[in-house]
């Protein structure tokens, strides 16, 4: 289950934030924010995707660059609000 969710998030990041032939690989540990793949403005759309997909409301004070910096970090964040 958790692996499926990770894959879903990875696929979304690849589709929305990377060029098709950018050659950049993304896995659960890839740095998303500190690498610049997702900038602080685009974090808003990633947060909205997660909220819609998992029917949660992530408070703004929890939506920090660190919390979004990898798919694993995002999983930890989601665990606070869902039963994934």
């Amino acid at each position, binding site marked *: 289950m958790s692996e499926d969710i990770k894959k879903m998030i990875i696929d979304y990041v690849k589709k929305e934030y990377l060029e098709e032939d950018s050659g950049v690989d993304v896995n659960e540990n890839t740095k998303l924010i500190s690498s610049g793949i997702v900038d602080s403005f685009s974090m808003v759309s990633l947060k909205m995707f997660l909220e*819609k997909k998992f029917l949660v409301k992530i408070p703004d004070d929890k939506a920090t660059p660190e919390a979004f910096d990898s798919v694993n970090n995002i999983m930890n964040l989601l665990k606070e609000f869902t039963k994934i």
Partner: protein
Amino acid sequence: MSHIGSYEERYKSFNWKQSEEELEYGKNGMYNIGYYCSDRVCEKGNGKKLGLIWEGFTGEVKKYTYDDIRVYSNTIAKYLQDKGVNVGDRVCLFMDKVPELYIGFIGVLKMGGITQPLFSAFGEEALFTRLDDAKTKAIMIQKKHLPKVRRIKDKLPDLTKIIVIDADEAATPQINEIHFWMEKAPKLDKFDIVRVGPEVPSVIHYTSGTTGKPKGAQHAHSSIIAQYITSKWVLDLQSDDIYWCTADPGWVTGTSYGIIGPWALGVTQVVLDAGFGAEKWYAFMQKYKVSMWYSAPTAIRLLMKEGIEAVKKYDLSSLRHLASVGEPLNAEAVVWSEKAFGKMFHDSYWQTETGAIMITNYPGMKIKPGSMGKPFPGITATVLNTKTYEPITTAGMVGLIALKPGWPSMMRSYWNNKTTYDSKFKNGWYICGDRASIDSEGYFWFVGRDDDVINTAGHLVGPFEIESALLEHKAVAESAAVGKPDPVNMEVVKAFIALKPGFEPSGDMELDIMNFIRKKLSPLAMPQEIEFVPSLPKTRSGKIMRRLLRAKEWGEEIGDTSTLEND
């Protein structure tokens, strides 16, 4: 002791000649910025000094002495010449904050090209608009951004040199693409720097307005006279400083104070090519013992969110002077910075068109938290009555910020758009487009923009460009983009959208439209909020009343609605 010493004395006795003499500007007929930022530093005996320490997000570090910068920029200049790039051709730099961006900027100038740095997060439409307007001949680009150019290059007949700086060796270039690796190319020790005149164009930076397409503010080589002396007196750069300007050279701060000013002074600067992270930033400053830090209010407010505890984990005792630019620095941030770092951030005010700092707080001068400070020596600044364009003499009364034209770094025109350039002047003053008041001690206090342009995280975003792009979405019938207050970014984009028949508002629709704009224009232009409405308020002549929507977001008086349709 700060370089400026007494502000009042400097203001009274200032003449730009002072800066020219220190720089020896024009000696032997040399006016080219590229020379002053590399060869001259070496001639002064600083060739072995580090000019750039670069760190990537993975922790990779690269170091370049001023002699390296001189030689690599020669190499790039010659390469461009050999590929048929001529004096006056526009060369776009479309890269993240990699060394080739900084050194490439100098290389383009040395061969007489006009640099056109663009923010690498721009989407293909934003990129197309700017390359099309400038009739850009060459672009230096990283392979990760290449797909954007490949999708638009057929519509850009002038763009004939697409120079990929980090291609895989086995990759096959497509039509008009060439592969170049700065550090593998034969190093060129001697290059005949093109003898441009002081008024010859050097840089074009695109900026947004309320209406029409983005405008290219065109600067001249002599801008260095202002960038040099403001770096010295405002940023107070000293020869042993380790300087960090967090701005991206895709924007004017990143070139004026991320390349030209510090390198003309022969200072060591550090660059972190990574996304934002409070502790990452503190660790970076601790590692390199950063002593002068020039950043932006949005970044400072993000740091504030992480708390002072995060700061205290690091030894930041090397910090000597802090300054800020982009949007007004709120008083709380100034006070917080003193608690966190033991130093106050010194706010500075200027814009793409001015090329250098115009109004600011100086080292040693009393800071009034929340104030923009006072005009730089050599700059005559005032606020004007909005109707008569006469200077306001009453302290505290709000008017338009205006500057007396004639300083060296002032834009010389908007590229291909002299009409809009001319419209920026009233009654002998250059009108900045912002409102402020001046207190009885001569300090300026920012109030807000005088138009619909959205200032988000210190970057100006034009509502027209967003609305035009929104109309390209299959579901959007009409739209209006306005700035909405935001505690971190000052403003963020909010879009009001009426959908076409057959489309329904939904969360998925909102996300789809947000991502559509982010990819087409840029993350800055992406609406952070979308409000679906049945229709938009219009004048009887059919013009969307953006001002009304903006006033609602800011909780302001709506004002005159006598021309409103159906009111």
